[in-house]
């Protein structure tokens, strides 16, 4: 990850956000947020009364009105600042991306010639040649050659990745650099629509639309605002009848305190920050809706290879045959693998280390390595003393030993089949004409996966593993990893069928994929996470792309989605719960002069009516910036059951929302009362 992505705030961002919060005062943009728009209108009304006291008959109260006006103005500015700050973080990221999008020249193939053209003139279908050290001029597909490509501009990952024609690693992204060899690329995007362009517009939030839940919440907040507007407007005639004259600034103050300004001011910041957290995680969400949906996921479909397991078969046990000792098997297995660079070979040496066994590497000195070949299905070494060591498929090794006149211990087949029946792969190890034993090769579950599936289960998410393996192997891995269900010998169509089946039950399904044949399933899934290393088709079908190409990240994406929803709920609850204390501050203050007995409702013992109103108003304003860090970082989330989560959040944000303003308003009043 690049350092600038880690920073929460930078000086420039804050300065920009401050500027933006004034620009956002424009009523046309404010109207999109009805809660804050009402505050802005109230601010304007109080401003008029401050500027034209003669017209409104408010002479002598100008100082007070000015104070109310300023607090209200800051309330609006704080809300704007929260949004601007959240947007700013995206903008900073976009700027760094834009730097990589400087003018690039491309070697376009025209007939048999090569023309040098600027990358902006490339159209879909054009063919370009990119050589070592050059930038790839646009998104495309490798149609010829193989090259290693540095994609750090997008992914932040500095190790180059291999791209080759055909297969699932053929897609390249404009703005990345070829570090070795040469490839021919067919451009697949029009100018302005490339992956980087989309990424820039996404992180900038230019195309940000409100998500469904955000719209529903906004509806509720708007109706609460209208309700309180009715409450406050109708209060004046009632009070008038009781012989109490209520000043307009006081009514505006009451209104602003009662409407849910805290959540109203922070709502869009929470949404932007949620997307931003996903992006910071090097996952690119195509819409906020996808992030929101990931919080609702019921079922997760995961590929076995690469996601749940390492995908390589690793040695997990040495099994002697005949009269041999386990130590002997290990020793010869090690000797045969000293020069073997395949993952299986390395895993044998690691297993020996892990089991605390030892072997004498000097035996293998100056030996000659025999590579694995499809015909022989064996590899090994020819030692300098003439002995030959081989390891490989059981049948092949048996044949090799038999050819040298050796005898086959009777338990080889039996033990070999036992391994196969458990889903493992047996490798036989032989020295000259004797078979010393078997190596149990196993597909290994990545460390920590079991615990993560356990967490998912606690969150109520079912996991389904898809694998091309036979049912037996699949069952073994499924048991080891602790997934809830598996599909063995699965074909791409199977995934779609499973997704449809789950969706028919009303479940929301997430899946990861990279190949072109995953594309339909990625499109069908509610949350489809494509790997950046995957094909263009997969990336277009998905609604999220993981730039690091780590499929297990889908689990974190779900957690981020949940965190986003929880933050929204927690701050809404907090905001509404605050009203109790504000009532106790303002209501007695409004009526205390006319009805002295009202002072019993002044349970906070606030200094004077005016200081009570101002304190409630100030609290209402400063709670917004105080909660910005929470809105941007999100509330703490640990996987647990819904009842535990609810109890915890209700305690912190519900009860906290009732108590905090009592304390806050009292403290502010102690200070404000010094003047009023």
């Amino acid at each position, binding site marked *: 990850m690049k350092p600038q992505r880690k920073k929460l705030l930078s000086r420039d961002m804050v300065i920009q956000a401050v500027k933006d919060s004034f620009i956002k005062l424009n009523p046309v943009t404010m109207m999109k947020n009805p809660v804050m728009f009402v505050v802005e209108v109230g601010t304007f009304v109080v401003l008029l009364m401050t500027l034209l006291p003669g017209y409104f008959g408010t002479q002598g109260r100008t100082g007070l009105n000015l104070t109310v006006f300023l607090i209200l103005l800051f309330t609006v500015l704080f809300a704007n600042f929260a949004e601007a700050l959240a947007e700013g973080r995206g903008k900073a990221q976009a700027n760094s991306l834009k730097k990589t999008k400087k003018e690039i020249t491309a070697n376009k193939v025209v007939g048999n010639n090569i023309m040098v053209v600027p990358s902006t003139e490339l159209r879909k279908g054009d063919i370009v040649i990119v050589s070592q050290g050059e930038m790839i001029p646009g998104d495309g597909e490798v149609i010829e050659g193989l090259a290693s490509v540095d994609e750090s501009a997008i992914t932040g990952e500095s190790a180059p990745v291999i791209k080759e024609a055909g297969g699932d690693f053929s897609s390249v992204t404009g703005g990345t650099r070829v570090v070795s060899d040469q490839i021919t690329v067919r451009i697949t995007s029009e100018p302005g629509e490339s992956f980087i362009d989309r990424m820039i517009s996404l992180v900038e939030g230019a195309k940000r639309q409100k998500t469904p839940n955000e719209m529903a919440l906004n509806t509720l907040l708007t109706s609460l605002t209208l309700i309180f507007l*009715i409450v406050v407007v109708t209060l004046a005639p009632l009070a008038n009848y009781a012989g109490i004259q209520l000043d307009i600034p006081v009514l505006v103050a009451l209104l602003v305190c009662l409407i849910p300004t805290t959540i109203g001011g922070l709502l869009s910041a929470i949404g932007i920050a949620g997307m931003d957290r996903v992006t910071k995680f090097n996952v690119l969400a195509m819409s906020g809706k996808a992030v929101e949906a990931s919080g609702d996921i019921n079922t997760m479909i995961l590929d076995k290879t690469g996601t749940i397991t390492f995908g390589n078969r690793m040695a997990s046990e040495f099994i002697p045959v005949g009269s041999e000792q386990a130590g002997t098997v290990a020793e010869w297995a090690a000797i045969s693998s000293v020069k073997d660079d395949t993952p299986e070979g390395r895993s044998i040496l690691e297993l020996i280390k892990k089991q605390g066994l030892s072997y004498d590497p000097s035996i293998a000195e100056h030996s000659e390595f025999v590579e694995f070949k499809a015909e022989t299905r064996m590899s090994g070494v020819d030692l300098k003393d003439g002995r030959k060591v081989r390891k490989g498929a059981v049948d092949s090794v048996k044949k090799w030993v038999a050819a040298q006149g050796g005898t086959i211990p009777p338990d080889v087949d039996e033990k070999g089949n036992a391994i196969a029946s458990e889903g493992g792969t047996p490798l036989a190890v032989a020295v000259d004409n004797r078979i010393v034993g078997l190596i149990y090769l196993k597909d290994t579950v990545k460390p920590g996966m079991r615990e993560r599936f356990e967490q998912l289960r606690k969150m109520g998410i079912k996991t389904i593993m898809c694998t091309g393996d036979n049912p037996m192997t699949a069952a073994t891995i499924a048991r080891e990893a602790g997934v809830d269900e598996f599909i063995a010998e699965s074909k791409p169509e199977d995934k779609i069928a499973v997704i449809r089946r789950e969706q028919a039950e009303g479940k929301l399904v997430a899946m990861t994929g990279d190949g072109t044949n995953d594309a339909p399933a990625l499109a069908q899934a509610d949350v489809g996470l494509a790997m950046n290393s995957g094909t263009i088709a997969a990336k277009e079908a998905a609604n999220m792309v993981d730039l690091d190409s780590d499929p297990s990240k889908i689990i974190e994406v779900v957690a981020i989605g949940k965190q986003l929803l*929880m933050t929204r709920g927690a701050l809404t609850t907090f905001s509404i719960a605050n009203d109790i204390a504000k009532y106790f501050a303002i209501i007695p203050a409004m009526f205390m002069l006319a009805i002295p007995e009202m002072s019993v409702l002044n349970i906070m013992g606030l200094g004077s009516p005016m200081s009570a109103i101002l304190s409630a108003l100030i609290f209402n304003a400063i709670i917004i910036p105080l909660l910005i860090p929470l809105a941007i970082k999100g509330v703490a989330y640990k996987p647990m059951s819904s009842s535990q989560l609810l109890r915890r959040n209700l305690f912190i944000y519900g009860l906290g929302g009732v108590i905090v303003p009592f304390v806050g308003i009292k403290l502010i009043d102690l200070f404000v009362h010094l003047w009023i």
Partner: protein
Amino acid sequence: MGIVQMAAVILLLILTVKPLGTYIYHIFSNQDNRTNKLFGPVEKAIYGLAGLKNRTEMTWKTYALSLILTNVVLVMVSYIILRMQNVLPFNPNGTDNMEPSLSFNTVISFMTNTNLQHYSGESGLSYFSQMAVIIMMMFTSAATGIVVAIAFIRGLTSKGNTLGNFFVDFVKAHTRLLIPMSFIVALALVALQVPQTLHPTIQATTLEGESQQIAMGPVASLVSIKHLGTNGGGFFGANSSHPFENPNPLTNVIEMLSMWCIPAALTYTFGRFAKNQKQGWIIFSAMLILFVASLSLIYSSEMRGNPAINALGIDASQGSMEGKEVRFGVAQSALFTTVTTAATTGSVNNMHDTLTPLGGLVPLAQMMLNCVFGGNGVGLVNMLMYAILAVFLSGLMVGRTPEFLGRKIEVREMKLVAIAILAHPLIILVPTAIAFMTDLGKGAISNPGFHGISQVLYEYTSSAANNGSGFEGLRDNTSFWNITTGLVMLFGRYISIIALLGVAGSFVRKQWVPETIGTFRTDNKMFAGILVGTVLMIGALTFLPALVLGPIAEHLTL
């Protein structure tokens, strides 16, 4: 002793919830059951008479439209009867035709299950009007409310496009529920000395030799449906404090249970439909918590009495007896007041105007919430609306988009719910404010000051909640009050019914989301707490400023 009396009635209520709720479920589940044999033929005859040949399931729009049109027809017929009752039969006392604005108010009042009475029954209505308009509407308006609840429950708990057939539900609500029950209750009341006769007013000569008019009539039948249907309009102006309507403590208990049992039982019916009985009990317990809290406030306030009177050295050991009947005492009056405003019936056995200020706050607050049991059907629907709101607000806190009974709550539902929660304060506070800004409104107030604010606020709250009880003391039989309260009653009834049927129509079409351990649970104690909290935060805080200026200010300045 008073507390034991009240607890006993509450216990009796709890005992009725399961059997009655199960019975109502069987009426509307449309599955075969034993009652079909008994009522089937009668209903077939009614369907035949009404020309209801194909009784197909209806979408929410058809259902709502059928409901509205049926109500409109009943309103028109009733208006005509009131305007020409003088020439119609069963008018032994020669009662004159009713004046237009009062007729408008009366018809709306009864069709909306409000029963706000700006007339006095004994002098304003003929026996025919009492039976053909008042009693008829007492049945139909209650049935309307019940079928709304049933349709809403179906929307929440079934899959498809339809909510049932309005006409079938409407007929069944009469034949299987309201008519049999009111028959039984009426017989019980007659047995307990409530009159039931078509004879004219009796002339009597008092001991002092004065001549006295004693009004009578078909009282028992009206009183039974008045309560069972959560209607509240009395035969006599004095309503259930009149000794003919409510002669003794036993009738008092019967009347309370009659108006309370259907709204309470519907929570159980809801549980049956949802196939989760706990879900029903949670809704019931939320209602009961709010109820007991209200009851405690009014009882303690009435027992404490009026400090100004206590200061004069008058014995206050009985509590404040002003405006109460000696045969009921404080406990039976406080309980009756709480029940009648919780279930938005609106019958009274004591004068709410003379309650202590905090005691008077209770009926006001219950009507403002309008979901503590509530009127037949609509109370449950309102509480379920608050449940949807509660899920929406706190459901997010478990990290999922909110879902209630396996349906996602989305923009469309929130818009409709927003209309319903917005309408209630709008139609209470705006007319109240208008009344205080005009002489037409202010002129009716009999006690100026804070009590006057309570009087006006009460009148519109009672209209909006379709309760119908009066704070009295307000001179409200004027065109201004007849028309404004008439409109408030109309909006109070139909805006939320239509909006919430819309919610049901939207829910019924939704894909169900399976329940997992990550789902926000709505059938445990915590949700009951959240629900009560939501009702108080959204429902009560809205009205706090107005209440502070009315009963609370009055209490503080007493």
